[in-house]
């Protein structure tokens, strides 16, 4: 069913659209963000500056953006998918050419007062692009090699650009999210088996390349992998992050040490306690109960997204909703695995909770698209 077949009168119009928003999802997003507010207040030592206040403002702005995006019909978003993807790709190229260097990597470009991180944008536009592609592609051609090759190219080009920045975490997220959308769209099993085997081969090759002139990833990335595999190897260097983070988590126990009582974060044993490692503060101060609460909120967000996706007959809506949900899932899954010592330290923030500029705005805008799909679902 294409947007052309929508009956204009079957979708709500005007302010009535607000009633058709997925309100439970909005509340869940607000709940997750509130956990973030609480923690940012705590890690600042009981102060709204320097983190809570800007984060609150960004969240309100993000909610506004989300509602605005939700009001716009989903077919509009489908139509601009190609344009959005191309823009994001150009911005990535621009970062590659003119971007500022921060934290040892080229990741953003300055657009007046706004600092734009195109890789964030790419996570969403790639999903939109792929959803639009499979909406356009007849189902019987989905697994034809040529039509499989095309989306693979769409995924690999931005992945490669992000990897060059270098930002290993985001490039893996792009790859996984893109692959996920292709899988849902119904590409044949065999392709995935082949790709996964190839990926294993690649990993082996990457490790083989270590120390050779054609080394494929940076030394610090190798070291991160090393310390992930054995944090005790370098307890005061790179392994410090993982060790301290596990100590913080573990010492939280069942119900935590109490709000603003976490010694690990308060005494600065935790690195980047307000961004990538914010979950450890939560787990330290509110324990297993606190950690599980946030995890449950996240899982519920995914469940609501999946329910929305299944209930709509519009292929673009389903795919874009599931793609964004998958992205969201990958964010928190990778971040939590990292702080719990299940994955190497890669720079992936905890969605909606970590202090951070463009990530939250882009994410809320993306949820705006999911809301738009929900509002403009033919009834």
């Amino acid at each position, binding site marked *: 069913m294409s947007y052309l077949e929508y009956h204009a009168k079957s979708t709500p119009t005007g302010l009535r659209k607000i009633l058709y928003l997925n309100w439970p999802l909005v509340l869940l997003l607000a709940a997750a963000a509130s956990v973030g507010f609480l923690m940012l207040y705590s890690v600042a030592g009981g102060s709204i500056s320097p983190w809570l206040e800007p984060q609150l403002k960004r969240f309100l702005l993000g909610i506004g953006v989300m509602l605005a995006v939700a009001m716009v019909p989903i077919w509009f978003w489908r139509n601009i998918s190609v344009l959005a993807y191309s823009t994001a790709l150009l911005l990535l190229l621009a970062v590659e050419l003119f971007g500022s260097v921060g934290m040892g990597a080229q990741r953003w470009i300055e657009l007046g007062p706004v600092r734009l991180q195109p890789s964030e944008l790419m996570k969403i536009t790639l999903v939109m692009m792929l959803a639009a592609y499979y909406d356009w592609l*007849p189902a019987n051609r989905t697994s034809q090699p040529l039509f499989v090759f095309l989306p693979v190219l769409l995924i690999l080009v931005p992945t490669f650009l992000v990897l060059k920045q270098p930002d290993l975490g985001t490039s893996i997220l792009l790859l996984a999210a893109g692959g996920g959308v292709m899988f849902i769209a119904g590409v044949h099993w065999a392709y995935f088996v082949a790709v996964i085997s190839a990926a294993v081969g690649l990993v082996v090759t990457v490790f083989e390349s270590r120390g050779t002139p054609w080394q494929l990833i940076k030394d610090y990335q190798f070291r991160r992998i090393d310390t992930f595999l054995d944090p005790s190897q370098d307890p005061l260097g790179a392994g410090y992050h993982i060790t301290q983070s596990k100590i*913080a988590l573990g*010492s939280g126990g069942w119900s935590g040490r109490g709000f603003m009582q976490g010694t690990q974060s308060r005494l600065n044993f935790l690195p980047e306690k307000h961004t990538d490692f914010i979950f450890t503060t939560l787990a330290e101060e509110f324990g297993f109960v606190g950690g599980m609460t946030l*995890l449950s909120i996240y899982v519920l967000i995914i469940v609501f997204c999946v329910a929305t996706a299944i209930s709509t007959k519009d292929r673009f809506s389903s795919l874009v909703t599931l793609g964004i949900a998958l992205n969201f899932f990958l964010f928190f899954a990778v971040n939590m695995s990292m702080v719990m010592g299940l994955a190497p330290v890669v720079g992936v923030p905890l969605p909606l909770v970590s202090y951070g500029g463009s990530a939250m705005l882009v994410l809320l805008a993306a949820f705006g698209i999911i809301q738009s799909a929900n509002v403009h679902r033919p009834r």
Partner: protein
Amino acid sequence: MKRTPKDQDSSHRKLTRRTLLLGGLQLGFAGALAARMRFLQVDQADQFRLLAEENRINIRLIAPNRGEIFDRNGVIIAQNTPSYRIVMVPEDAGDVERVIANLNRLMPLDEEDLERAHTEMRRSPPFLPITLVDQISWDDISKVAVNAPALPGITPEVGLARVYPLGGDFAHVVGYVGPVSDYDLSKIEDPEPVLRIPRFQIGKVGFEAKQEKVLRGAAGAKRVEVNAMGRVMRELDRREGEAGADMQLTLDAELQSYVQARLGQESAAAVILDVENGDLRAICSSPSFDPNLFVRGISVADYRSLTEDPYRPLADKTVQGTYPPGSTFKMVTALAGLENGVVSPEETAWCPGHLEVSGRRFHCWKRAGHGHVDLLKSLEQSCDVYYYDLAIKVGIDKISEMANKLGLGIRHDLPMSAVAAGLAPNREWKSRVHGQEWLVGDTVNASIGQGYILASPLQLAVMCGRIASGRSVTPRLIKSIDGVEEPSGAGEPLDISEAHLRDVRKAMYAVSNNRRGTGYRSRIIADGVRMAGKSGTSQVRNITAAERAAGVISNRDLPWERRDHALYVCFAPFDKPKYAVAVVVEHGGGGSSVAAPIARDVLLQALYNGTPPLEAYPAGDRRKIEAQQERLERERLKRRQESGNDQA
């Protein structure tokens, strides 16, 4: 593109199927995360909580207060007094060099201090305080306080510093403390953590070093919360340390100070022993030095002047110095002869001024000879030939045995640095150490305390005390620790016949009280405190036959370091011995002329527990003694004022 509804349905079903599959995978992963969280936070919580505590809590040691040292009357010898120092937190100071320059304008800083402060600054994080100057006056402290605005990061601090108010009087006995050095640490196996406290002071020499364990006490500890940088955030709790034990010495500060003054600038040593219980009443080595210099950190120039002084002020001559005892050893030879039945007190020997022994001629100090000599006369006039003859008859092994009985050639266990054992050799010793047979000539030399025989002033005092009391008196320096009395050193009765001891004592009495006695000029005439003594003049060079022929050069004409040592041992009162005294004046010349007057003055001072009445002295000496007493009193007053000023 146009699609059939059937097409749509199948693709939608496929999409739903795969969505649920992927959703299931995601849910599964979330479950894994939850399980991991449970594992870390519930199953392993205790372990991680412990690690977090270890992270956050640091144990800091609190230095214990060192035990103080008192004399037998409670006069303080070593005390802890508040000392002011200036510390700087480089982080708060900002421009460190400018602040130091400002401070330098207020109070000139030592080049060495600055050097050390800079090294410390490089080593420690900027939030830890660095000591700039230590032990400064109250005036300087107030200057710093007044100018505080110009000196950011600088604070005056008060701590405890070891002070020896009596200065040089106890420098050799008590020693001094100083900051732990790397060298000190390297000598100690498994050093206590408290020693790692920067600038922690430990005993370096003397009593302070020997009784370190008792004086130090136990360190306290405080638990502090630190952040990842090691900065102290707050104190959680503290357990105060246990102060070191206060110690009371057997020494009498008044007497000690008198003796030190009486020895003056001679290179000399004097020991006063209470023969009733072994208490050391005074034990002085001269010249002395100010131990406070070492506590503060002695300057290179001061240190060099101490080490290069030929009179060796840093050495404790009372226990470390060993000297040929000379004629003071004759009591040992005499007792060995009497005890072994070789001679009786009445038996006489003939002294023609020398004795031929296996072709070698041994001279008596009196070239003309003493004629017929019995035991009393032999000691009274210190005839050498009598003892040559006696020693050959009794043999060196018996003499050595008697010397050991009287406390020579054995190390007395005193808490002082490098207490020497001296030497009372026998045949076995010479063959063991020198690989040579003991010769009869060696015995002849030994009989008058020359040759191999060596004794410290402490040992001579013990010897004299044992002869006087007839008991094996052992010297004792510690009277009590934290008020608990230490065992007395009175000792068991000696395995020597009382009759023989009495004969020797009588002869010693004659030395001091008979007109012809060598110590007659330094006698005590007050009844009830009459003294008995024995002089000794020990050679530090060999007198060759040629030299003897040309006439022995008088001590006065020799360079200082080749002159004879002057010795005197004595005890009093004769009827009921209380104190035994030994005096050694290095290269002083004659024992009877140099050492005996000192020994007599010291003995009287002890007997009268202060300045003795002039009536105790022979009438002819009184004017001289009066002048000397006044001079010493003035000197002591002056010194007391000086050390008083030091502390203010």
